């Protein structure tokens, strides 16, 4: 789980989001020597060398010289909202290429345990399919355990020395973006990495923060906590499903009813989840804020480190409050990634200690009692809290609903017409050129949408100016 999230956060930050802020065409104008000097002043990462940076620049130059820009051909290069100096752009572009290597490495951890990635195949109802036997060549053994540890340590270096530094630097250069994109500031996050077999203590805390007030944090305390189970609902008033109701997942149904775009009616395939009747933002920012509020030490350490770096670069104190924003959401993703790397190391030690003590149990055969049973499970996925809800009748599935992270964030207006997090975050976003609304992409991409979605920009007379497909 830690390795999967680390991969996801690295790819999202560098490959799916950074090019909204970093102009790779401008990077071609940079002086590689000055870039190396800049990189070395920010971090002791050993791949900020002149040779490394010059190589990256030449590679990009070769692409541009070929005249075939491919997926980069439609980018917003030279857009007035792009503000970084050529050297900063080149440094980020160099790390963009390096990040591709490290996401591959951390994915190998997922594959060793999950059989392959993407689409891991080691989960079984009642446990995992990984047999542990240190005296067999065909199971999780010492070779595999140390393969995992080696990869974790290698990628940890990249996350701590490169990604954490880059996100602070981009945050500092775009400090005005701490003022945009807060949107819905109710935050919901799941506790994860249980430390006992009953799911009552967790290495990573989670819970709920209403209205940006981390003093009002309420933890989710167990896998069965009614505080979570009782407070989740979904509405379909504005979604392309039959009817108009707000229901608990156990009582939901999913019957499509497509109406095309209706301004005040139905306009989305996404349902609108609520917690205690209100929309909630989920994802790394929600996770970092709840872990911060719960006193999780690694989260506090890396959040403080990033905020201190930003403060010293901009020359004034930037506090936790700055995280309620577009750029804060991006920073939180990397902060979480750093904290998870510490977690992975700890979990590896715990696993080895268990094996050393003779505990190699990986599976409890499930039983399905007669009658109607219902239950839920949750997990803090890379994009936020994921919950599955099931009703079983005499051993057969009667109802199954998944309330997934992007549903929480992308949901349309709910049963009370309150805006969902994507919608609310776009209010008051600056847009310099409505034909090229890069700023809209910045805020939307900061959520890491799991889907391609569309934002329709319409003027006050309801004429559509431009439709932005966010990918």
């Amino acid at each position, binding site marked *: 789980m830690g390795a999967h999230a680390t991969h996801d956060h690295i790819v999202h930050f560098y*490959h799916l989001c950074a*090019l909204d802020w970093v102009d790779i065409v401008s990077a071609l104008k940079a002086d590689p020597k000055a870039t190396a000097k800049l990189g070395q002043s920010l971090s002791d990462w050993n791949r900020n060398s002149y040779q490394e940076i010059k*190589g990256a620049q*030449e*590679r990009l130059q*070769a*692409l541009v010289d*070929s*005249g*075939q820009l*491919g*997926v*980069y*051909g*439609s*980018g*917003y290069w030279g857009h007035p909202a792009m503000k970084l100096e050529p050297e900063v752009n080149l440094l980020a572009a160099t790390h963009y*290429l390096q990040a*591709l*290597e490290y996401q*591959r490495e951390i*994915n*190998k951890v997922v*594959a*060793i345990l*999950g*059989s*392959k*990635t*993407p*689409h891991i*195949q*080691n989960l079984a109802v009642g*446990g*995992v*399919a*990984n*047999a*542990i036997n240190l005296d*067999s060549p*065909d*199971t999780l053994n010492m070779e595999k355990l140390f*393969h995992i540890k080696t990869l974790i340590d290698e990628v940890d270096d990249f996350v701590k020395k490169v990604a954490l530094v880059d996100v602070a630097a981009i945050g500092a250069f775009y400090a005005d973006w701490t003022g945009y994109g807060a949107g819905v500031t109710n935050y919901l996050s799941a506790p994860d990495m249980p430390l006992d077999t009953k799911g009552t203590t967790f290495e990573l805390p989670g819970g709920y923060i209403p209205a940006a007030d981390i003093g009002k944090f309420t933890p989710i305390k167990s896998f069965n906590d009614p505080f979570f189970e009782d407070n989740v609902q979904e509405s379909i008033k504005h979604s392309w499903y039959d009817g108009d109701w707000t229901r608990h997942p156990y009582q939901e149904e999913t019957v*499509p009813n*497509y109406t*095309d775009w209706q301004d005040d009616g139905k306009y989305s395939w996404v349902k609108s989840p609520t917690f205690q009747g209100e929309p909630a933002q989920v994802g790394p920012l929600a996770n970092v804020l709840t872990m911060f509020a719960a006193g999780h030490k690694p989260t506090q350490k890396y959040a403080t480190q990033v905020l201190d770096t930003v403060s010293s670069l901009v020359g004034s104190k930037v506090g936790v409050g700055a995280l309620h924003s577009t750029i804060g959401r991006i920073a939180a993703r990397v902060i979480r990634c750093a904290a998870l790397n510490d977690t992975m190391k700890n979990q590896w030690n715990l696993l080895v200690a268990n094996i050393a003590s003779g505990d*190699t149990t*990986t*599976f409890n*055969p499930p039983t399905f009692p007669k009658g109607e049973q219902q239950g839920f499970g949750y997990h803090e996925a890379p994009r936020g809290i994921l919950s599955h809800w099931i009703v079983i009748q005499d051993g057969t599935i009667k109802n199954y609903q998944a309330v997934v992270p992007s549903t929480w964030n992308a949901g349309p207006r709910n049963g009370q017409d309150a805006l969902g997090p994507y919608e609310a975050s776009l209010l008051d976003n600056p847009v310099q050129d409505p*034909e*090229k*609304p890069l700023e809209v992409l910045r805020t939307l991409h900061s959520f890491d949408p799991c889907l*391609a979605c569309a934002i329709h920009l319409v003027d006050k007379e309801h004429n559509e100016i*431009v*439709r*932005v*497909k*966010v*990918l």
Partner: protein
Amino acid sequence: MKCGESDLSSLLGDYSRRDFLKVCTASAVYMGLGESFGPQVAEAAANAAKRPPVIWLSAQECTGCTETLLRTGHPTLETLILDLISLEYHETLNAGSGHQAEEFRAHSIEENKGKFILVVDGAIPVKDGGIYCKIAGRTALEILEETAPQAAAVIAIGSCASWGGVPAAEPNPTGATPVHKILEGKGIAIINIPGCPPNPYNFLSTVLYYVTLNKLPELDDKLRPKFAYGRLIHENCERRAHFDAGRFAEQFGDEGHRKGYCLYKLGCKGPETYNNCSTLRFNDIGVWPVNTGHPCFGCSEGGVGFSTPLHSPAQLHHITPPAWFPSATPEKGKGASALAAAVAGAAVGAGIVAAGMNLGKKDHEEDEES
């Protein structure tokens, strides 16, 4: 144009010629072309005035088929899109969005008419006029029907595009349909690369095959390249010896499972799934599901993955196991009765070996016929 080392260097930027030849040789060997084809692959790529254009359309998909390309090491995604092909349009990887991306796509199709490879991932919903998947205000069905006739060839990547996959699972509420069915009878060259997601090297090698030889690889009756899908997983499985000897895991975590026995009784679909997972493996580290202890669920095989229960036993079309298996070889030194059982086991074992040899012979006969 004569292809010298300097030409290659200028084409490849900081990617060294040796590395490039290594990739090409590995691909050539993997495609069954032999090592001597390596330089030819490199030369073809270097001589091409332009990198071959590829347009990637996404319909009812989860982006797993794209994610899988992020994991490849030979070549890597960056080598693929910076040095080997020109990926003109891809929803997830485009730097631009909205009008910018759509205009770039339209322009590229116009400019590369008849020359580009069209990759499609995801099934195409056809129910209710195709409204269950719209991109930039148009249905996936419309976009596919308009784009495919202009392509040199169409690659359907993943099980969804190849035979329907997850969205086509019963009751198929959106009428999810595979690409080849939509394009049937239109004279368009189509290749299926099923899997959930497919092994990325099966996709990469197909693209490199086409780029190098300017023709499609040999396909089976389901339009799958034979170099990847020519054998049942079961035929090359590392646990096959346990199957033949009747050593099975009965439940996750039991003794057989912890000894790496065959997963047939846990529902492994290796005996009815045509794929190269057991030889090619995943993520450049030699892993695949059976290696971890999880049965294959036939993700790449239409009618098996997403349509039969995970743990129900596979249909054995080509291999009939004996009705009775001996227990695993008993431990030594357990007294007279254990010794007697061992002797009986050895006798039965001999019978199994004989049966195995016959099976092998039958396989060879089939090979010669085909």
